[in-house]
């Protein structure tokens, strides 16, 4: 029961705290809340945009969750999704003539491969060189941004645009939009994200590899005693995490803009950390949390126009407050659970990667 109540409470507390911030800015919090709900679910188009924003968050949330399960922090989803999207756009720009069923599949596979490779690097560095994945993934985010900027501005630049973006992809690559959502760019990427969640659930709960990943995440010593090579598992887990983040490119490039636009992601990678945390690193939880944050992202977009003082950036404030509420395990001990429970809780830390194990090296 606690597994469900805690995230729900955290969301409630985070939302109330966020609304209190808007109240402090001289807005009526109830008015702000109504704009949020109306902005996110008011029409078919609004629902579509919520789903459109939720799609990449499912991918990045799964990415962070898979790494979490192996006891690793993937702060690098942002870089992985950047390279995935860039790779998909590059394929589409270089071979524009390719036809429909093959073209998007190829671009999607390349996005997956690019993300996988970029994720495997910090996995390898952790497993074989002993350097911590948190710093390495942060650094690789900047490296990815630099590489993407170079490729987009020098190698496959869009000659018809002043914006930093790549040439448009061929017509055969584009994904159709579902008709239900009033023109919102909801494409096959959404069912693909749900399928990915299902596959992650099967992998983690029903396969030997999933068991090995969780074993390494819970206790390296025990995993080693059981004959598992923790290094190998860490590389696999980070590669998997990278691949999942790389798939963000499908919905963005093939399903929406038809090109790689520098800075297209409003920090989906970092939001993925919040999504995974709120979803308790379980695929179903990740999907639910992604929908919530997608709705928040869409809802707050209206605040710029509809209120006097509140800007859409307040979405980040809501998210930050929700993360802080979920992550502060100590709060739940404060609330009368007593010391006995708290020892186990902080030992687990946030989703298995926390507590005593958190070191750079």
């Amino acid at each position, binding site marked *: 029961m606690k597994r469900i109540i805690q995230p729900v409470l955290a969301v409630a507390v985070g939302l109330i705290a966020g609304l209190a911030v808007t109240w402090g800015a001289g807005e009526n919090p109830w008015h702000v809340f109504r704009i949020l709900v109306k902005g996110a679910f008011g029409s078919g188009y609004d629902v579509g945009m919520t789903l459109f924003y939720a799609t990449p968050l499912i991918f990045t949330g799964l990415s962070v969750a898979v790494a979490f399960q192996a006891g690793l922090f993937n702060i690098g989803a942002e870089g992985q999704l950047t390279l995935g999207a860039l790779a998909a756009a590059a394929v589409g720009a270089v071979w524009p003539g390719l036809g429909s069923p093959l073209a998007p599949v190829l671009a999607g596979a390349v996005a997956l491969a690019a993300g996988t490779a970029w994720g495997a690097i910090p996995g390898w560095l952790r497993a074989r060189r002993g350097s*911590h994945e948190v710093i390495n993934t942060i650094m690789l985010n900047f490296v990815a941004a*630099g590489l993407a900027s170079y490729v987009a501005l020098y190698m496959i630049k869009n000659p018809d645009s002043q914006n930093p973006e790549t040439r448009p992809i061929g017509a055969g690559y584009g994904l159709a939009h579902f008709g239900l959502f009033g023109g919102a760019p909801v494409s096959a990427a959404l069912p693909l994200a749900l399928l990915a969640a299902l596959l992650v659930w099967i992998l983690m709960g029903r396969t030997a590899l999933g068991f090995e990943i969780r074993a390494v995440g819970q206790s390296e010593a025990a995993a080693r005693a059981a004959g598992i090579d923790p290094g190998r598992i860490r590389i696999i887990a980070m590669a998997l995490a990278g691949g999942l983040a790389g798939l963000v490119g499908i919905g963005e490039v093939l399903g929406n803009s038809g090109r790689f636009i520098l800075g297209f992601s409003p920090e989906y990678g970092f939001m993925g950390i919040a999504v995974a945390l709120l979803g308790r690193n379980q695929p179903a939880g990740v999907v639910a949390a992604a929908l919530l944050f997608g709705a928040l992202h869409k809802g707050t977009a209206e605040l710029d126009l509809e209120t006097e003082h509140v800007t859409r950036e307040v979405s980040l404030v809501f998210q930050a407050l929700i993360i802080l509420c979920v992550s502060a395990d100590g709060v739940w001990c404060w609330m009368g659970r007593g010391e006995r429970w708290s020892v186990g809780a902080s030992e687990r830390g946030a989703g298995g990667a*926390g507590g005593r194990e958190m070191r750079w090296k």
Partner: protein
Amino acid sequence: MTRQLLESTLRVSTPLIFAALGGMFSERAGVINIALEGMMLVGAFGAAVGTLTTHSPWLGSAWGIGAGILLAAVYGICVIRLRANQIVAGTAINMLALGLTPFLCKIKYDVTGQTPAIPLDERFQSAPLYLSWVMVVFCWLWLKHTRQGLWLSFAGEHPEALDAAGIRVNRVRWAAVLVSGALAGMGGASLSVYLSSSFARNMTAGRGFMALAALIFGKWKPVPTAIACLLFGFAEAVQMRLQGVVIWGKDPIPVQFIQILPYLVTILVLAGFVGRSRAPKALGTVFRRG
């Protein structure tokens, strides 16, 4: 040309040095500080607002430092008092700063992106640059020659030993995190009232993370860390100078490769390909009295 490059290297490394020294305090005490970026950002905002209000860069910087300390206190409550995971809480603090600053900017000045410009004569001319190097020397001496400096290192290396000596580990960590916020706030201040003339949305643009990289590159020691900041500052200065310059062919030089150099070097150093960097032993661990 060389002189200009040198000057601009010193200038752009100033915020990095402040922030990296801030990171050093908290990390040497055993608290990971991913939140440097956010603390810098609120520092930059606080200093811009403070300078616009008080018409003095010094008082303005004090506002920035105060803002940094305030955010550091929130971080401290989360990770020391509530034992939240430091990476997760740090990420959240960064988001909070990124979201809160444009929001407050809108409330105060009714524009989202940017504060009004600070007049030239109300900005710093070169004081933060000198101050940053004074701080480097001071931190070096303080760590080496004072008891408190020793406590700081013990809180990060052997918290149990410090506790056995009768010093409250979490108090040392609290002090370290707050100092960290103050220095990062000053780093932000030197960004908004020294290097530029206003606060802009996300104006730190990863400098907090770069400071963290310099800290690792400098093996968590003040002087090597400052030198790493200079190196990264040099890369930034070169990149600014070469932006749009055409040397051969028709395209400008791709400055992106210079841009990613500091991050790449940090990865290599941490992996032991170029030297070796070892973190404080108890970094990231929760201390609970036995």
